[in-house]
């Protein structure tokens, strides 16, 4: 499927995304437009945007370190109170348990390693496949969320 346009703002999308800032921003705008149409509130949209951004950046920066010209696979499904997002790269994968806890005092001054923890903090549910090259995240928007 081609990359969705912000104007179309489809509730469901599945497409290849290349490491071009303009493409990433277009994809993000299309997702945000779908969320707005489903009346997600500002705090939810902030959270989902942040998780989407971190997921995409991680896929390119780490997964595609040796594959700079290859696309990642992105999909989402937006429902009235829920969104599910999947981001899959073509890299070898990683073990999320190997990422040191960036919130420990000893690690606070290390400039990297916060993407995954932010995704976990903001999303309702986060899972990786066994290979560690695909992240599935789900956000539930309800009165209890906020």
């Amino acid at each position, binding site marked *: 499927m081609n990359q969705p346009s912000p104007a179309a703002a489809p509730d469901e999308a599945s497409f290849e995304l290349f490491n071009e*800032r303009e493409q990433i921003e277009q994809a993000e705008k299309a997702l945000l437009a779908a969320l707005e149409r489903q009346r997600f509130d*500002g*705090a939810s949209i*902030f959270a989902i*945007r*942040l998780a989407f*951004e*971190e997921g995409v*950046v991680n896929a390119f*920066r780490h997964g595609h370190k040796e594959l700079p010209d290859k696309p990642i696979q992105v999909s989402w499904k937006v429902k009235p109170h829920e969104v599910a997002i999947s981001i899959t790269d073509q890299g070898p994968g990683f073990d999320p348990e190997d990422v040191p806890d*960036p*919130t420990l*005092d000893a690690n*606070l*001054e*290390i*400039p*990297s390693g*916060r*993407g995954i*923890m*932010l995704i976990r*903090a*903001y999303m309702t549910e986060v899972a990786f496949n066994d290979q560690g090259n695909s992240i599935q995240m789900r956000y539930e928007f309800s009165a209890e969320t906020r």
Partner: protein
Amino acid sequence: MASAESRLRIRKENDVHQVEFIDRNILDEGNIQQIGEEISEIIEAEGKPNVLISFSNVDHLSSAALGTLITLNNKVKGKNGQLRLANIDPQIYEVFVITKLNKLFQIHDTTSEAMSAF
């Protein structure tokens, strides 16, 4: 670098370099790198750098931006200077709290409060 348009507004007041972002979203890695280089130049040019970064225009930032702020903080501390942050939107401040970086950085509500703390 010389040809790239600055992504910052910088002015100096009472030995403090006040830095403001032009972009509302500090997400793009290329921009973040440029911002880091611009502020690093200020730090390197000073014996004891005092830098205040205002987030008044910022709606979004990424973990890459946090990483750059940490690197800048380390550089400032290495020269016995001070880096202070101000005007952080509550949603973005929450990102600092989640990552516990509110413990690492000197964060103030307003620019004037930050200025009087130098």
